[in-house]
Structure formats: structure tokens, C-alpha cells
């Protein structure tokens, strides 16, 4: 793919044109970035107070060549529109977006360009103009900001030609300096605006993918459940036959197991989804007992999975954490290990998933080793990031992020050693509670 692109620059150019066109035209226009009620109120207040304040600063305290209290009063009044109930009540409505856009277009590019021109591009207004550009790209969509800046500057220049005060022409050198500084700040603002638009989309995409995967994970047991229903229907017709009642009982057991496993899965998802606000409850946790319980209660999919787990207790230790959360950490690690084992080409043998508990150099260690497919070196650095998954099809990328949060919350560390095709070793080190 890459090689063909290099060898035919035409295709390369076409690809980029398509990308740029998509970025410009297809992505949704977000006129108010983060349209929250409080953000709008603060922006309104800032406008209302800021303009009179700076009018006083540049007019009285540190006087500049040109300042207009009347204009400042008008600009300040615009802030009232942002605070008004109609817009703060429904920040995401179309009307709010229109008012917001007009207010910011007038008070940012139009007003600042006017002031810059009337003050003949002096130091204060060069800096203020650059700051304005950066602010503008932070409050609205980068495409709207670009269009607004160009049109605002043109309008201000036209007004300046007609009604502006007379100023002495700027030297060629000063003009060049100002142009470079403005170009620099404008380009930076545009780039940052574009990249944060991408980042917002990416976050949304991650969240949606995760929701999709969670839904899929719940659908898997439901598919089995539906077959159990069919089997019950078949068996109920033959319940009088020898062994019929017994087979029905077995199906009921299956149903209960399935529901238990689904509940455990839901618990896992809920725990993982609380990544950023883990409860801070702490207690003394005994490593050996915890691992024994987790290994005993894990929802294995078949007896072979259960038999592949070997728990080795070298030396028990206690550490300070939440028992429930830490059990979830081990659950996540087991789930990943089983997924890696399922992706290999041969059946799991006893010992293919090995958990060791021991003490080394004064630190408690829990080591989870699997003989699964392993993790490529370039991915290993990223697996603890939220939403990063080595398998975007079935993994949501929250499990290991959760593990890291909990382990670090207990003052410990977690790391991985792995080679593709040769399994993975997860090493948790924890300070021992004496």
C-alpha cells in the first residue's frame, strides 16, 4: 500500500485531497465547543467585565494611541446575550449556536482587528490580536474560526478605511515582523484546533466502540441461552422418556451457570467503567487467599480452561488495597490470558496459565504467566492506556488500564514481558503490609 503510494505521487495527492475534503466538509460543525451552561455563563461574564476593564487599562492606566469607551460598552453588553436564559437553558440548540457565533465573531476578530489597525499594530495590539486568534479557536469549530478570522479582519479593515483615525504608515520592517508573528500564532491555533477536533472524535469513537463490545459480550451468552431454550422445548416433549427429567435438570443448571457468568461479566464491565473514580476504601488483603478465591470462582468456559490454571504459592503476603477491586484485577488478567490462549492453535494444557505468589527483595509479587499468542513489542508500551486494545474486535481496552489504576493505588506497579507467539508474563509488585 505504502509502496504503491510512493511510486505514484498522483494517488498520494488524491488520497490527501480526499482526506482534507472529508475533514472540511463531512465532519459535523460544532459551533460551541463544550456547550455547557456554566462555560457559557463564565464566557458571558468574562466578556461583560473584561471589555470595560481593558477599556480602562488601555485608556487610563497604560494609555494606548486609540481606545473607545463607547465601543467597549457595546462589546461588554454582548456578554449579556451569552448569560441570557434562552441560550444558557439550551446551549446545544441552533439558536444558541447562532447567537454564540455572532457574539464571538463581533467581539473577537472584528473588534480586535479594528483595535489593531487603529493602534497601528503596536506591541500591545499585536500581542492582543495573537491571543484573540488562539482564544477564538478554543471557543468554536476550527473551520468556523478560520472563516470568522478572515471575514472579521476584512470587515474591520473596510471600516478602518472609511471611519478609522489617521495613522502614520508602518515601516516595511515592522510590517514584516507583525505579519510573521500573526502568521505563527494563526497557524498554531489552526493546527491545535484541528487536532483537538480529531481527539474529540477519537474519544467519542472509543466510547462507542467500547459500548459496542460490551453489548457484544452480553450477546454471546444470550445466543447460548436461546439454544438452551430450544433444547428445553425439545426435551419437554420427551420428558417421559428414560433420562428425560435428568436432562431437563442439567439444562436448568446450565441456565443458572450462564446467568451467573453474565452477572460476573456485567460486574466486570461496571468496575472497569469506573476507571476514573475508583472507590478509595482500603483494607488489608492477603494475597494467597485472594488468588485462591478468584481462581475458584472464575467463570471458566469449560473444564479444560479450569484445568489449565495452576496456582503456585511460594510465600504469602498481605498488602493494602480493596479486596473487591483487586479480585477484579486478577479476573481481568485471567480473562486476557484465556483470550490469548483461545487464539492459539492448540488446546490449553495444565500450567498454560500459571499464577505465582511470592516475595522478592521485600516486595510482594503476583506473577500471571500464560502460553498464549503474546504481545508484539511495539504494543507492549501501550497496553495499559485506556481504550488501547491489541484486539479492537473483541477487547475494549479498559481491563489493563483498570489493573494499573488499582495496583498503583495500592502503591505497587504492574509490568509485562512478552514475545509474540511465546506467551506473556504480567508481574505485579506490591509493598508488603507488616
Amino acid at each position: 500500500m505504502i509502496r504503491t503510494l510512493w511510486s505514484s505521487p498522483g494517488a498520494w495527492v488524491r488520497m490527501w485531497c480526499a482526506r482534507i475534503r472529508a475533514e472540511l466538509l463531512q465532519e459535523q460543525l460544532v459551533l460551541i465547543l463544550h456547550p455547557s451552561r456554566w462555560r457559557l455563563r463564565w464566557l458571558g461574564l468574562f466578556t461583560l467585565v473584561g471589555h470595560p476593564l481593558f477599556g480602562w487599562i488601555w485608556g487610563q492606566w497604560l494609555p494606548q494611541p486609540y481606545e473607545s469607551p463607547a465601543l467597549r460598552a457595546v462589546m461588554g453588553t454582548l456578554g449579556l446575550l451569552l448569560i441570557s436564559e434562552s441560550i444558557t437553558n439550551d446551549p446545544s440548540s441552533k439558536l444558541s449556536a447562532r447567537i454564540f457565533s455572532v457574539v464571538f465573531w463581533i467581539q473577537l476578530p472584528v473588534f480586535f482587528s479594528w483595535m489593531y489597525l487603529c493602534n497601528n499594530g503596536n506591541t500591545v495590539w499585536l500581542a492582543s490580536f495573537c491571543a484573540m486568534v488562539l482564544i477564538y479557536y478554543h471557543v468554536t469549530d476550527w473551520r468556523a474560526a478560520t472563516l470568522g478570522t478572515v471575514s472579521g479582519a476584512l470587515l474591520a479593515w473596510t471600516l478602518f478605511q472609511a471611519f478609522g483615525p489617521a495613522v502614520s504608515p508602518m515601516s516595511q520592517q515592522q510590517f514584516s515582523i507583525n505579519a510573521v508573528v500573526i502568521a505563527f500564532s494563526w497557524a498554531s491555533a489552526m493546527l491545535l484546533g484541528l487536532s483537538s477536533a480529531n481527539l474529540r472524535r477519537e474519544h467519542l469513537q472509543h466510547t462507542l466502540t467500547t459500548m459496542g463490545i460490551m453489548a457484544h459480550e452480553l450477546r454471546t451468552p444470550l445466543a447460548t441461552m436461546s439454544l438452551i431454550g430450544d433444547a428445553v422445548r425439545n426435551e419437554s416433549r420427551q420428558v417421559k422418556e428414560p433420562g428425560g427429567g435428568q436432562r431437563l435438570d442439567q439444562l436448568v443448571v446450565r441456565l443458572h451457570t450462564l446467568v451467573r457468568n453474565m452477572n460476573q461479566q456485567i460486574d466486570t464491565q461496571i468496575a472497569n467503567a469506573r476507571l476514573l473514580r475508583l472507590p478509595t476504601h482500603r483494607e488489608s488483603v492477603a494475597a494467597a487467599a485472594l488468588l485462591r478465591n478468584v481462581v475458584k470462582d472464575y467463570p471458566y468456559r469449560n473444564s479444560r480452561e479450569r484445568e489449565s490454571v495452576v496456582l503456585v504459592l511460594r510465600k504469602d503476603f498481605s498488602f493494602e488495597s480493596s479486596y473487591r477491586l483487586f479480585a477484579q484485577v486478577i479476573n481481568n488478567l485471567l480473562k486476557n490470558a484465556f483470550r490469548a490462549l483461545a487464539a492459539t492453535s492448540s488446546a490449553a494444557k495444565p500450567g498454560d496459565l500459571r499464577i505465582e505468589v511470592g516475595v522478592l527483595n521485600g516486595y510482594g509479587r503476583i506473577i500471571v504467566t500464560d502460553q498464549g499468542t503474546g504481545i508484539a513489542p511495539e504494543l507492549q508500551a501501550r497496553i495499559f492506556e485506556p481504550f488501547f486494545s491489541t484486539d479492537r474486535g473483541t477487547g475494549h481496552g479498559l481491563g489493563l488500564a483498570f489493573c494499573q489504576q488499582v495496583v498503583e493505588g495500592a502503591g505497587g506497579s504492574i509490568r509485562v514481558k512478552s514475545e509474540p507467539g511465546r506467551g506473556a508474563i504480567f508481574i505485579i509488585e506490591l509493598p508488603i503490609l507488616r
Partner: protein
Amino acid sequence: MSFPLFHRPGAIVFLDDDPAYLEMLAMVLPRQWHVKLYLRPQTCINQLQQEPPLWEADAWTQQEMIERWRTGSPLIPQVLNYWASHTARFGLARVCVFDYAMPGMDGLQALGELTDWPGGRVLLTGQADEHVAVSAFNRGLIDQFIAKQTVDISQHLITVIQRMLAQPQIRYSQIWRAALTQPQHALLQVPSVARQLASLASSHWVEHVVIGQPFGILGMDADGRASWLQLESAAGLADLAELAESQGLKAAAADDIRAGRHLVDLELQQALGQPGPARLIPAFSIGHEGTLLGALFPVELAASPPGLTGYKHWLKKHGRRTVRD
């Protein structure tokens, strides 16, 4: 639909990464199916990749029967011998059903590995993968896809697989077409004839072969009992009556044959090389047109080769449904 000239049961292979799902499939699928369940793509692929040479050898054996028939060896005893000696034929898979979402390798990648395997392909999908399945179907990679959330999925699966099992296998049709004359073949293509033969076949036999000389269908039921459906076109009745008379049958019996009330198993006896008293069995009309008559004669045990044990016996020996890890 056309009536298959050659039919026999085959295995149905399932590949899914969820053992619980496979175990439940094992419970709900019809008992008479030979079902193989696989948990790992690689194991399943390895198994299926061993089949094409076996299919080839099997087709070759059938081709040889036709060759020998051309040099004068009757087909009926050859087919009975083939059924008795080639019991492994039941183990060849006819249909595979792969789950799409699996760790390591998805269902389409797994199907992609089966380049030479000739059976039917079904993909099981989740809702989110439907577009993948549609595009795979359009590219001819799969014959059918079924969403796992389909209401009453087991019944749906069974219907789909039954339909695929009932379809003639092109390779075999070509081989056995050579044993028929053009008019015989044309008779079988008449829709009402094909329909009635299909329902007859499914109610009496698990496997069958259509042959042309003598014209009829040799079938075997699940218990290994063979029978012969003698077919006779209305135009051929006079010749058959003449043959019966020449073999010493009474004139009244010959009249019955001429009138299409009875058929006689003389040709079957000749083919089996076991002349005995000719049997007369009431004939019935096949299809609406009244151009074809049939009568079903059991093939005597004495005439069957030893080892003709049938599908049920084989299934009992090989058909245990276990999930292969």
C-alpha cells in the same frame, strides 16, 4: 429443484470459540446428523484440509464403477459393494458453519483457508458484522449467513443446513449422469416427478443412486436395508410384459404389467445374478403426467454383500458429539 442422482449423508462441522454454545448445538441438532464441533480454527481447518484428497478418491471409485459398467459389469451389485466397503464416506463433511467473531482468526479468514474443500459454507454473525457477511456473500466466499440473534435460531439453522444437504453435488451428478440415457434424464427433470421422488427418497432412504440400466433408484435406509425403486416409462411397459412372458410368467400377470398395475423385479434379479421366482408388486404413478411408473422392491439380505451395516450403525460408532479443543 432437481432430484439428485446421487445422495448420501455427510458430516456438519461447527466452529465457534464459545464451548457452551457448541455444547448446546450438540443437544438441539437432529440426532441423525453427524455433527463435528470445533473450538479452535486451526484444528478445524487442519481437519477439513485433509478432506479434498478423500473426496477425490471417493469420486474416483464412483467413476470406476461407471467404467466397469460400460464393460458389462452391472451397477447394482457394484453400488452395494461400494456401500459395504467404503463406510468412511459418511465422515466427509458436507456443510461447515463458522462463527465470525473469534479471537485470533475470524470466521472469514478461516473459510479462506479452505480453498479446495468442496462443501457448503455458512457464516454465523452478530448484528455488527452483518455488512461483513453481506460483502462476503456477494464475493462468493460463503453460501449463506445467519445472524446469531435470529429468533428460533436452531430451527432456522436446521432448515438452512437441510436445504444445503438436499442439494445435488455437482461432481457426483456429472459422474452418474453418464449411467442414464437422455430420455431417462429428461423424465427425472419433470418437476412433479422430481418432487415425488425426493419425498419418496427422504421417507425410505438415507442414501441413494439413480441408474439407467435397469432404470431405477437403489437406496439404503438408516438401518442398512437396501431397496430398489424400479422405474418404468409408460412406453416401456409392453417390452417389460414381453420379457416377463418369456421368463415364464402367466399371461394374466403380463397383462397387469402391460396395463401398468404391477411391475416385476426381473431386471433386478438379473443384475444381482440371483434368478428366483419373479416378484410382482403393485405399481404407482410418479408425477402428474402419468408417463412414469414405479414399484419398490426390497433387496433380499442374501443378495446384500456382508458388511452392509448402514448409517445408523456407523453413527453409533463415530457420532459422539464432543467439542474438540
